[in-house]
């Protein structure tokens, strides 16, 4: 399990290949890439700032990956999350999961994303034509997380 919190961009192809080539019995790699949208609730976004809680962030992400591991049978998981100042179409987050079979890898990847969205200490501030504001947490993200605990 690898967790990286960084200002730099990441290379999806490189990271997926690393996971893929780590074991010769890997059959499936599921990955998620999140990017900054140019539109949010109808406003044109010109910039996005990502703040986080150094020290807690890495621990929270590792705990989420470990929790996924107790629930599904996969080989390895990689989580990269960017912080700092981003623009529309910039990549924000990569979650990639390798395993023998696809079903468990799909579930683990989606589980990690749903918990990252609701438990990892990141906060987004958007700059739009109307000035800057902190994003509100979404009910849909809480709902997505709830699906896994019922």
């Amino acid at each position, binding site marked *: 399990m690898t967790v990286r919190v960084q200002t730099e961009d990441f290379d999806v192809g490189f990271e997926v290949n690393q996971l893929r080539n780590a074991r010769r019995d890997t059959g499936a790699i599921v990955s998620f890439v999140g990017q900054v949208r140019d539109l949010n609730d109808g406003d044109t976004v010109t910039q996005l700032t990502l703040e986080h809680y150094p020290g807690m962030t890495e621990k929270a992400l590792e705990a989420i990956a470990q929790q996924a591991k107790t629930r599904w049978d996969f080989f390895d998981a990689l989580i990269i999350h960017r912080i700092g100042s981003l623009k529309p179409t910039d990549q924000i987050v990569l979650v990639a999961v390798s395993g023998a079979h696809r079903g468990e890898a799909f579930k683990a990847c989606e589980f990690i994303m749903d918990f990252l969205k609701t438990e990892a200490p990141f906060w987004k*501030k958007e700059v739009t034509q109307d000035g800057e504001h902190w994003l509100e947490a979404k009910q849909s993200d809480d709902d997505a997380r709830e699906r896994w605990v019922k």
Partner: protein
Amino acid sequence: MKIKIFYFARLKETLKFSTEDLELPDDAFAQALTILKLKAFLAKRSDVWQQMLLGKLKVRGAINHELVDDNAPIVDGDEVAFFPPVTGG
């Protein structure tokens, strides 16, 4: 007792505090300190503090890098953090 407090995102910006070291007398209050009691204690500082910590904004707490609920006990030396619901990913 001595604790360290961190504030993030909207809280940090509005309170104009990112971190502080708080020293409290070792009385009954300190011995029974929880996240909620600490919020109430800090909220007395001013209307803005009241508004940010006990107002409409849902404030989540962490102790030593773990998300906790309002009833979690705080002990000497803890690192406490307050922040709005997270919005990463």
